[in-house]
């Protein structure tokens, strides 16, 4: 057991926890609002317009409604697990979030095995979905949960494979190190070809991992009514919702950190003047700018594509993405071994 002096760290820890919880709530609300607006404009609609200016307070109204809503639990549900499942999902999201570097100073926990930690902890989230679907005692929920289980575990592989490419080039698992390694340019274009391919694979596989269209089979409202959260309402449903949007944020943040240089400004090799100009923009703005762009792309997917079928989902992973990922990793290994990438000597 680590013996830290509790008198000093206790308030700090409580403060951190409250900060993280506050942060995720606010981010989730903003994301929900953003999704509704983005979706609306993709579909020639206006979206929420009534609560506040252009519906800006809609998310607050919705969350208030979810707080006040009656919590309905099916009679024959497994009450303990039914209550516990949403918490697991949110827990996994929070645990993942603390390892993500928002800027060079704003890092809650700079874990030395950051990438490993993130992919391991985010894998817990599927447990919440599985338990939620199973404990609801509803066949549709169970189907959704089983789909989610198979899907998330399968796509975890592709995500990891594409992350490995970056780890090879950066030579570290620590997320801050990976960001620092991109000072001369982001890995997405600095690693010729493989970086871009790894990014595309990462984007597809992580969209599947967070259960968003075109991979939203776990919810699949036209097939399974609402999938694993059919029997959830009120606050518990809000927890699942929160976890979903936090996962969206985490995926975008991971993509930005590993492929787009995290808080790093856009730097190109030896163009000093350009690089100095870019340095004027603070790191946090860079980071959130990249995250927002990625989130928008994932939303764009959702509001354009139809859903895959469950067997197509599996064959996409095991027949297309996985082989491509391995091939990519192999090429990347050679490239990094011989130093065949752009600006290898800058840092």
């Amino acid at each position, binding site marked *: 057991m680590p013996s830290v002096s509790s008198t000093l760290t206790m308030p700090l820890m409580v403060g951190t926890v409250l900060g993280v919880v506050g942060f995720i709530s606010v981010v989730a609300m903003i994301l929900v609002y953003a999704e509704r607006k983005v979706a609306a404009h993709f579909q020639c609609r206006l979206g929420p317009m009534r609560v506040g200016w252009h519906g800006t307070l809609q998310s607050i109204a919705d969350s208030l409604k979810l707080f006040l809503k009656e919590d309905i639990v099916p009679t024959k549900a497994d009450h303990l697990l039914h209550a516990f499942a949403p918490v697991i999902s949110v827990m996994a999201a929070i645990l993942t979030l603390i390892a993500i570097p928002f800027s060079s100073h704003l890092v809650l926990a700079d874990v030395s095995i950051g990438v490993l930690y993130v992919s391991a902890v985010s894998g817990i989230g599927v447990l919440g979905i599985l338990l939620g679907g199973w404990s609801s005692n509803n066949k549709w929920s169970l189907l959704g949960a089983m789909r989610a289980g198979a899907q998330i575990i399968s796509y975890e592989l592709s995500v990891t494979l594409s992350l490995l490419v970056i780890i090879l080039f950066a030579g570290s698992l620590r997320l801050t190190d990976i960001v620092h390694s991109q000072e001369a340019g982001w890995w997405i274009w600095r690693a010729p070809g493989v970086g871009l391919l790894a990014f595309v694979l990462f984007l597809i596989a992580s969209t599947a991992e967070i259960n968003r269209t075109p991979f939203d089979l776990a919810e699949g409202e036209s097939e399974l009514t609402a999938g694993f959260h059919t029997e959830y309402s009120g606050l518990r449903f809000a927890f699942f919702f929160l976890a979903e949007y936090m996962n969206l944020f985490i995926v975008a943040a991971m993509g930005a950190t590993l492929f787009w240089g995290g808080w790093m400004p856009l730097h190109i090799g030896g163009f000093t003047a350009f690089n100095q100009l870019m340095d004027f923009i603070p790191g946090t703005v860079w980071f959130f700018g990249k995250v927002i762009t990625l989130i928008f792309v994932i939303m764009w997917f959702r509001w*354009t594509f139809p859903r895959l079928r469950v067997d197509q989902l599996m064959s996409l992973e095991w027949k297309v993405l996985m082989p491509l990922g391995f091939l990519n990793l192999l090429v990347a290994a050679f490239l990094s071994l011989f130093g065949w990438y752009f600006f290898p000597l800058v840092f």
Partner: protein
Amino acid sequence: MDDDRLTAKNNYVKPVQALPIRGFFGRIAYGLGSLLKGMRVTMHYFIHPSTVVTQQYPENRETLVLSPRIRSQLSLIHDESGYHKCTACHICEQACPNASIHVVDRPEPAISKKELDFFIWRLDSCTFCNLCVMVCPFQCLEMKPTFESSVYDQRLLAYNLTKYAGPTSTVLAKQTDDEARKNMIEPRQVYDGPTELGGFILAGMPESTREKKS
């Protein structure tokens, strides 16, 4: 199964485009291309806010243009002096497929003919088929585009359409003075929910307990 009676024989038959069979890499290449194409379509609408079709209804009430033909509410045409032409002939009542119209005769008419006492129209069972308007021999009914008629009590959906009980405008016009006209008619409340209806019971509707609006 004879194949000749299928497609080829007739010259008007147009076979639809068959789905091409693609190989592994062909599918990946086509797939990525098609996905980007789709994303281009949605992006087009995203960056063109002028394509938004949403109408913000209660706010745009002032500018809302409705076609005069819209059938939303039946009304009995009253002329400028407030008299209608209904002779209580019951044809609309018979034409109504859902028994939504009850024409109630006046028990003691001012003249020897039949006179209208109440013209009950039930919005709750009306299907807006327009037959009553079409069959009326005196063209005294019309459908209005007034569509905001939702209420919280079913009984409020039974309307009385006539403003008065009494003879038609033609009969009233023959009267010499206003006093004579006043004596012949008895005022009625229009669009005022369930009236007492002379003891009339409407099928499927709870009996009126509501106080008459003054």
